[in-house]
């Protein structure tokens, strides 16, 4: 069970709700509820916004494709023993 109460999308201000819609495009998936991590990162835009930009910059296509980078991210998550 999460340590914090994860707020519903409606409890966030408008800029965060717009970001939740954009995340559907990023993941190419129509989430019925924004993912928990998206809601966590939207809690404090002073941290979440630059962290999210850094993530998108790191994950964008370059020498490696987005798909290849998702696989690297999965391997890193596994090495960190993170089930999320």
């Amino acid at each position, binding site marked *: 069970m999460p340590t914090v109460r994860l707020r519903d999308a409606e409890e966030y201000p408008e800029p965060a709700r717009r970001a939740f819609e954009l995340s559907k495009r990023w993941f190419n998936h129509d989430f019925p509820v924004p993912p928990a991590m998206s809601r966590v990162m939207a809690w404090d835009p002073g941290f979440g916004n630059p962290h999210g930009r850094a993530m998108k910059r790191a994950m964008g296509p370059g020498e490696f494709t987005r798909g290849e*980078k998702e696989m690297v991210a999965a391997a890193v998550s596994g*090495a960190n023993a*993170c089930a999320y």
Partner: protein
Amino acid sequence: MGGDALWYEAAQVVGITNALNVVADGLGGVMAPVKVTGASPEVAAVFDEIRSFYGGTPDIPGPFALAAHDPAYLADLWAAARHAYDDNCLPRRLKAALAFAVSLTTRSAFGTGFHLAEMRRLGVGERGVMEIVGVTQMFSSYTKIADTLQLEPDMGDIAPVDPTPAPAPGAG
């Protein structure tokens, strides 16, 4: 990236990378490796394969030189490692990147240096290296945030299920 075969290969790379790193980082300073000169014919044959696979390097990577104290074990360890790192569904270049990311994440001095050198040897430029560093760093952040807040997985169903059966022995 679709299809379970890709993910099985990635898991093999992660597993064998960790296995090699554990030995290299743990035993490298306390156990002498088997040297090329004076190696038994059985070990020398495996060493030749290893050197060839890694671009003709004169040095045998530490974990294999340590494993060579038991030639039969070395042969099987190398066979598994070669299978995992060789081109298959995933290219060697990406496998080197996966191994580098896992080594960096697990703070393996051996693995980080070795697989960084392999990435570069296989043609990954500095931009590509920094891309893998960035992904590793960002997901080392996300994972710890998720763990600290004890978030439950909620993104597992965004990927399609692969309905194909297990491959026949010898396939691939």
